[in-house]
């Protein structure tokens, strides 16, 4: 599956978040391809979901894939729980 992570600049926290999600994916046998982008660039990208910190993703509107906000970007347990919820609800592999 393809995940986009986002933050203000598109290379600091979003890249860390992407690496965390890929690691969680490996743990659960899901192959995650992805890109870290700044919030101005996420619209119209082809992906299965967008992850970012809560205060950033609330700025995103008119996105036609699930947008998942992480309230504490340092909390791996929260990232894992939200990622697994998303996997359950979606049928992408």
């Amino acid at each position: 599956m393809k995940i986009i992570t986002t933050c203000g600049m598109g290379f600091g926290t979003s890249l860390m978040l992407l690496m965390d999600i890929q690691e969680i994916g490996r743990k659960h046998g899901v192959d995650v391809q992805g890109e870290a982008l700044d919030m101005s660039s996420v619209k119209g990208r082809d992906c299965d979901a967008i992850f970012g910190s809560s205060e950033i993703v609330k700025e995103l509107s008119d996105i036609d894939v699930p947008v998942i906000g992480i309230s504490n970007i340092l909390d791996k347990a929260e990232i894992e729980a939200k990622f697994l919820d998303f996997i359950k609800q979606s049928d992408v592999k």
Partner: protein
Amino acid sequence: MLGFITSFLSTPAFIIGFVALVGLIAMRRAASDVIKGTLKTILGFMILQAGSGIIVDSLVPFSQMFEDAFGLEGVIAEDNAIAAAVQAVLSMETSFILVFGFLLNLVFARLTPLKYIFLTGHMMFSMAATIAIVLDQMGVSGWAAVGVGSVIQGVTSVVFPALAQPFVRKVTGNDNVAFGFYGSSLVWATGWIGGKLGNKERTTEDVKISPKLDFLKEMSVLMSIVMVLVYGVAAAFASPELVAELSGEQPAPLMVVLNALTFVVGILILLQGVRMFLGELIPAFKGISEKLVPGAKPALDVPIFYAFAPTATTIGFIMAVVGGLVATVLSTFTTVVVLPSVIGLFFMGAAAGVFGNAMGGRRGAVIAGFLLGFLFQFIVAVAYPLVGLDDYGITGLWFASPDAILVVALMRAVGLLFGV
């Protein structure tokens, strides 16, 4: 043949690409990953250079107008634009300082109690370039610069996060991550002062701030507004003859807006390049560090702290802009006018708000944000004579990161002892 190889490897993008290639092969990656990683690193680096070219070009008319209007030099503090612009001459030094500096970071994290791994790529790149520039001006270049520079880079990778850690614990409530950002000392210092003058019990998070201000959180929007204003002011006070000459066939207001927005476009392109070339580098660095120094704390980029007090980020940023404007006005009495430097004010101001709030509540956040904006820009005005960038064809830009400027000052001081 040898001539071809030499010129191939003295091209900045290929030096970086070659380093990536060797690294990927050393990590025994699959052939497809090696090709992909090497090419994306080269492309990212070329995009970065293209962006810096646009930035430097768009600043030329601005610098002329500003100097004509006020008889002073005006600069914007932006590290990555400088780092990219000097690559034409210092790419070998910069890329090897970046790589060996990281390897020394691993050694220090392994052997000393300072167990931090610095993983904020764009900061590592701009610090490496800053060190290379200062050494170059002190007459040290080539492998000697790589040797000295890598040690300095390695030391900064562990020392600045270590200094910040007691304050990071106050904000995050744990000891799992560190602050990997070459402005961290100014963030915690202003936060600490805000804490001394504030009251921790009255948190910012009970304050309601209108979400109408949120559109300013998008960098490109905010920067466009500020740059159009800055260019507009310079044009309004410059002599009509000069403005007419710069405008050519265009109406003057159009020239002003186009140039200001071109600067922003340059920044956006530069950041896209940074993104592409770091997207390959940082995951590799992270993988290596987890293998070689298990249990070390990753030192990460500044936005990791925003979630701990979202309202404080807005307060800190707005106050930083106010402080920055005061510094701009006061800097007219120094040798150089430091213009509002949006990226620094935004990212560091927001963090100062969070640190100030953790130690001194609302008042702490307000004071920390204001002090950060003021000091960040005023330090640039004071330190400006330390390094001249004109030799590299760069006008209107100067270093931004407070910690990097501190390193520059220390290097200059040591240089004086040795007479360079």
